[in-house]
Every structure is written in C-alpha cells, then in structure tokens.
C-alpha cells in the first residue's frame, strides 16, 4: 500500500476478525442475535407488503395468500418471527433509558421509571391493538 495514494481510513489498524467472532463470547452472541432480529422484523414487513400486493390483485389471488399463511412452513416461520420480534422489543425497551435521559425541570427521571413506563405502554398498546384486530 502506498500511503501517499491512500485515504486516511486505509491506514487504520484493522485487526483480522474471523467470520465467527460473534460465537466467541456470550455477549457477542447476544449482540448478534439482537442485530439479526431486524431480519425477522423486516421479513414480517415484507410478508405484509406481499399481502397488500395480493389484495390489490383481487379476491382469488388474495385467497391464495391467506392459504399460504396457514401452511406448516408459515407456522414455523411465524414462531421464529415472534421470538425475534419479542427479543427486539425487550432489547429496545431496555436500551431506551440509556439513550434517552429524561429530565423534568432540573431532575433526572430514574431510568427504572422509564423502563416501567415503556413496558406499561407496550402492554396497553398491545391490548388495544389486539382488540382492534380481533373485533370488527
């Protein structure tokens, strides 16, 4: 490498990392699980997008989509999506008090209160949505 032609970032020291570095420590592994939860969160958005597309194609096509949602493969997929989705929710709620320091006047709201409020909000929102989804 010729330093004169290099951008500054090319000169940074970069330790060689194995592809499997995230299996070396429990915390690395949990970090990777947390980051990969986004894959399943995105997958659910994609499945919903397919649903909207199928809906636009008419009732017969949409019926095929609804049938596909009830296959054994869909069962496995949605259980996996649910597990990662819950893990995303837990990690996201626990990170919020660290990132957002809430202040009222000159006093800092204790992080534990932010945490409890987040859990309560999640439960209330979920119950309301559950009702709206299930009841006509």
């Amino acid at each position, binding site marked *: 490498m010729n330093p004169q032609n290099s951008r500054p970032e090319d000169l940074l020291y970069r330790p060689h990392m194995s592809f499997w570095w995230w299996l070396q420590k429990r915390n690395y592994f949990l970090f990777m699980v947390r*980051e*990969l939860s986004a894959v399943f969160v995105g997958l*659910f958005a994609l499945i919903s997008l397919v649903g909207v*597309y199928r809906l636009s194609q008419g009732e017969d096509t949409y019926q095929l989509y609804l049938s596909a949602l*009830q296959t054994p493969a869909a069962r496995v997929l949605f*259980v996996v999506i649910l597990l990662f989705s819950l893990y995303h929710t837990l990690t*996201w709620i626990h990170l919020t008090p660290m990132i957002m320091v809430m202040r009222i006047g000159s006093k800092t709201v204790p992080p534990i209160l932010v945490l409890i409020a987040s859990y309560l909000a999640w439960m209330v*929102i979920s119950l309301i949505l559950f009702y709206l*989804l*299930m009841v006509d």
Partner: protein
Amino acid sequence: MAVRVKTIDPIWWGLFSAGGTLAAFLLPVHVIVTGVGIAFGWVSPQVLSYPRMIALLENPLLQIYLFLLISLPLFHWAHRFRFVLMDLGLRNLKTPVAVLCYGVAMVGTLLAALLLFLFF
C-alpha cells in the same frame, strides 16, 4: 464493538430508530394475531378476510398506518443489516452494502406507497 462510521447519517439513523420503536411496540401483537394466530388456527382468517381488508383500507388513516408498519421496519432492517454485513467482514464493500440495504427499503417503501395510496 468496532468503531463503525465516522459520520452517522442522521436520516438513516432517524429512520432506523423510528422503525425500531414502531416495531418494538406494535409488531409483537400483529405477529401474534395475524401471524402465529392465523397460522395455527387460533385466530379466524376472517380477521384478514378480503372484504374486511378492502373496507378497512378505504380509511386513509389505516392506509397511512399500514404504510408506516411496512416502511419503517424495512428501514430499521436496512440500517442494522448493513452493519451486520460489515461486522461479518464486508467492511471493504461499505458503499455497495449501504446501497443494497437502503435500496431494498426504499423500493419496499415505494411499492407500499403506490399500492396503499393509489390503489385502495
């Protein structure tokens, strides 16, 4: 964790954060009802039936809701997956990885907008 980027693009981070918050609070109940529930037969597929969905999507507020429910988690995915790929060794492909990830999210967002706002 390695030093990731020198300048964080606030737009991508904002979308990531909005998508993460939306997914954290809204997604599990959607997955339970319309995903796991329908797949295992605990919830009637009538919840997602054609007439019901068509009727619901006549409401512009529900169009916007479903649009956000699709678009923001896609941007959340894009931002996280971008750094997963770089952490797994694609650090030399920074630009193509970013274009691919945010590109998928943008295409998904565009499709969702066209379908939801123009068709229904």
